């Protein structure tokens, strides 16, 4: 056990974090507006990836309808702001709560489904959400045109509207989210999720309330996506159903799987690949899907655990060789 970034001398690690922090703060002074905006979307998708990572990565529930919760957050912000003029910053927690409520309502009846079945239901839910938004129920969502004129957030009288304002705002929220999730990972809840992912039946037999824990994961994941939706809505000031299509759910899912399920740095790396890299290769836009498909196939062959896997996954693959005392071969287990 002598490899991996987490085994570096802590001094180097601190230096690396410091350099990263300074770089992140200085970035808007060095980049042009276009690249600041890329970084903003990078941040929003990191949030979305983190939100889905709770459901897919921590607990292992397949969810291909995450865009629906993103939409709930964005539309509740848009509707409540344009109709009732509630400041959008107040709506940040509120849209998170509403999305979490939706997460509860949706997951409650389908939690007993497993794997691919759950996946299919979540796809269906995502599509229902998109079609509903498109059909302008009660004149609330504006149909295919969406909602325009969403206000900008104001913090103590300071109005955020420039890309670099948003840059600091978004990445501050990303930072807070990462700190909170880190703590959650090591809490009783985080451990319970981990056990459920490994072996649901054994977890239940150990006294873990499996359904409650799954429900909690769905609510937190949905809530965080709702928060991202709020940010997106205020940043764009215009939202429409097409921004919350099935493709968005696929992107989020790919971010989690590509980076390494259950891994926060994995989500960041995954988002880098899915959101930022395509910007670098704009010239190849036509071949994008081709390159993307090829990359996926290569990943599956050479790095199935993800680009930056959670510590557990890495151990699982390497431990058999490393953890045994010298001279002892791993034993083959019957029925294990």
């Amino acid at each position, binding site marked *: 056990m002598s490899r991996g970034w987490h085994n570096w001398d802590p001094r180097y690690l601190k230096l690396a974090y410091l350099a990263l922090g300074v770089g992140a703060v200085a970035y808007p002074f060095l980049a042009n507006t276009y690249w600041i905006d890329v970084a903003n979307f990078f941040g929003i998708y990191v949030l979305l990836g983190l939100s889905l990572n709770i459901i897919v990565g921590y607990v292992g529930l397949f969810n291909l309808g995450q865009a629906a919760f993103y939409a709930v957050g964005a539309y509740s912000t848009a509707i409540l702001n344009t109709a009732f003029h509630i400041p959008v910053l107040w709506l940040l927690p509120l849209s998170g709560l509403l999305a979490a409520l939706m997460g509860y309502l949706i997951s409650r009846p389908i939690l007993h489904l497993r794997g691919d079945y759950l996946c299919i239901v979540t796809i269906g839910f995502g599509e229902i959400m998109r079609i509903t938004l498109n059909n302008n129920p009660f004149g609330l969502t504006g149909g295919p045109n969406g909602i325009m004129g969403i206000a900008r957030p104001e913090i103590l009288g300071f109005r955020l509207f420039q890309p670099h304002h948003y840059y600091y705002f978004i990445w501050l929220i990303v930072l807070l989210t990462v700190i909170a999730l880190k703590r959650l990972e090591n809490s009783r809840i985080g451990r319970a999720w981990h056990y459920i992912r490994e072996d649901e039946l054994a977890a239940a037999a150990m*006294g873990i309330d499996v359904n409650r824990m799954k429900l909690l994961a769905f609510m937190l994941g949905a809530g965080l996506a709702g928060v991202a939706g709020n940010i997106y809505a205020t940043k764009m000031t215009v939202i429409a159903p097409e921004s919350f299509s099935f493709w968005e759910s696929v992107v989020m899912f790919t971010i989690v799987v590509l980076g390494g399920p259950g891994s926060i740095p994995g989500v960041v790396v995954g988002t880098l690949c899915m959101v930022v890299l395509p910007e670098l290769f704009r010239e190849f836009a036509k071949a994008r899907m081709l390159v993307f498909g090829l990359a996926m196939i290569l990943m599956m062959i050479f790095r199935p655990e993800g680009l930056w896997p959670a510590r557990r996954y890495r151990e699982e693959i390497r431990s058999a060789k490393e953890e045994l005392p010298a001279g002892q071969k791993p034993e083959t287990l019957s029925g294990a």
Partner: protein
Amino acid sequence: MAMLAVENLHVSYGHVHALKGITFELKEGEILALLGANGAGKSTTLRAISGLVAPRAGRILFAGKDLGKVPAHEIVRMGVAHAPEGRRVFATLTVEENLILGGYSRGRDRKGLEETRRQVYELFPRLYERRRQLAGTLSGGEQQMLSIGRALMAAPRLLLLDEPSLGLAPLLVREIFQTIKEINARGVTILLVEQNARAALRLAHRGVVLEAGRMVLAGSARELLGDERVKKAYLGEK
């Protein structure tokens, strides 16, 4: 009053009627062996008791309380721990982390948990030696020890053991059974499911024989060991 009373228990998996009316009792401090061939319903009985499958009919009373509608995690809290078939240890966690998980239901009782962990290591010194090793790299026998130790971490009054001898070398089986006896001597009531009928009956006070979801025999371990039908069907004697 019996610690555990199973009354006319029926369980179905879809259309398969796995248990067709089982009735038995377990007194405090006892070891009861549940015997039978593959598919007789032994594991299903344990799963019904620990709340992992829902009974279709009948009652399960633990210390006088009906477990029928109680969810699995609450049952653990009431003092019933289950070491499931196939061990099901968490391969990617270390031995110690597996044990910590076993005490999950006891919340933040740090002192009590530490004390129980010490006792588990005392029962299974091998686990102590390997406490930092990942459970997936343990041998079959060690995994079985871990599975039992993990169940003990919940500080159960009733321990459900599902085929602890499965896939183990004869010498290890003896060691495990010796430890089960020791656990029982420390005051834990045990319901033991086994295919190894001879070893189980030597250890248990009483036995119950299941066949295709029904009870066919029940009695003291000594009686069962001497019974012609048991000898023929399960002990391999003529």
